[in-house]
């Protein structure tokens, strides 16, 4: 244990920089995935055909194990071996597979009378979408984002197997040097990142939905 702490004290810089890299690689797909999921989810609420297609398509994509997708995507897209896109694109796909569902559920949960009231007040459809539907969707979206973010952070470490950096480096190096302490530091770091991200998302959810905190 003391050996591990000594190592950590001497390698804070490395651990922190790996953590930042890890966080980037994990969160960019989640953000992109969210942005892409909103219009896709909206489309799905308007068309039953699309809804079912997405249901099966994304269920199918989500079933594909991460390492498999990390290998197949570069081949399909022709990206270089060490291109970070090899990690970002599959993780974005996973996020979209997860979030489109959330967007659909969230939009469909907006009470119809609230929409009707907004229209009656003169909101045009697009304005109403951003002023009413989206804000009311926030709780469900945040719930979905929390799952997507934690999942993403956990998956980035698998990238160490295809040469992409992050806290996963501590796992492969720790294993090579028979140093469990290093691996444990990597696991703890990954858990801390997940926890912090989760808390930040919960906070954002609270800040953007003040009406849920009003006591009558």
């Amino acid at each position, binding site marked *: 244990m003391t050996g591990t702490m000594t190592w950590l004290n001497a390698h804070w810089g490395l651990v922190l920089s790996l953590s930042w890299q890890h966080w980037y690689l994990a969160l960019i797909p989640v953000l992109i995935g969210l942005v892409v999921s909103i219009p896709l989810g909206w489309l799905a609420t308007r068309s039953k055909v699309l809804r079912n297609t997405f*249901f*099966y398509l*994304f*269920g*199918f994509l*989500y*079933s*594909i*194990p*991460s*390492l*498999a*997708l*990390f*290998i*197949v995507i570069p*081949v399909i897209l022709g990206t270089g071996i060490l291109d970070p896109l090899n990690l970002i694109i599959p993780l974005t796909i*996973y996020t979209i*597979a*997860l979030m489109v*569902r*959330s967007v659909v*559920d969230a939009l*469909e*949960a*907006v*009470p*119809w009378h609230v*929409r009707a009231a907004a229209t009656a007040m003169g909101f045009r459809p697009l304005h109403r979408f951003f002023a009413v539907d989206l804000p009311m969707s926030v709780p469900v979206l945040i719930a979905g984002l929390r*799952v997507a973010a*934690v*999942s993403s*952070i*956990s*998956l980035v*470490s*698998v990238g*160490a*197997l*295809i040469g992409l950096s992050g*806290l*996963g480096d*501590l*796992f*492969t190096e*720790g*294993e090579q040097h*028979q140093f*469990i302490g290093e*691996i*444990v530091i*990597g*696991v703890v770091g*990954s*858990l801390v990142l*997940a*926890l912090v991200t989760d808390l930040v998302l919960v906070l954002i959810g609270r800040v953007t939905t003040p009406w849920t905190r009003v006591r009558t």
Partner: protein
Amino acid sequence: MSLWAQLWHWLTTSANWQGGTGIPTRLAEHLEYTGLTMLIAMVIAVPLGIAVGHTGRGGVIVVGVANGLRALPTLGLLTIVVLAAGIGLLPPILALVVLAIPPLLAGTYAGIRAVDPAVVDAAKGVGMRGWQVMLRVEVPNALPLIFGGIRSAALQVVATATISAYVGLGGLGRFVIDGIAEQDYTQALAGALLVAALAIVIDLVLVLVQRLVVSPGLNEVSTRSARRGTRRTRNLSAPGAEVAHTGGSSS
């Protein structure tokens, strides 16, 4: 030869289908790891989820722990277990079990909690004791969500078993890991596609089992559509349904 042509060639070479390193052997190994893990994980997680869901006590802890375990990085857990307990079958399986428990536990717990209290009440009114209520009413009604957890866990295990090849296990992940080491991208790609296919097939099989086992009346969950106040049904027994309900896999 393009990579796809090479891939076709690899898949149609009979040598790759024979012997200790052939596709059938690796497939059998992969199924062995998946089956063993699911068995152990279900024995642990399902009774625990039912018990906690039924009594309503400890739910917060259970859900919290399950979500926490979900965040564990697969590769980290595998390497720790192997360094601590050595290579061989059991240590990696242990890691796989730990990662399979969260979706199973979450799904089972959610399923039991989601059973309509009126139904439970009616059962008690008819004179059923705690045990009977649990086994004859709550569990059957919770089956759709429990199956969601099982499917989610199965996908998780197939994915994790692939990565276990890094710590010396066999299975289809062997093609991927060896392919990367030998810079034989055809082999790695073949392995990746085989694993993806296996995951999809297993999910479809579980969907079929779910259709057979779960009472038809439970296969559709009603949600009120806000659009016109009409009832909308969501088919829980279709591929992809588990994504929403148990938060999907983390591998």
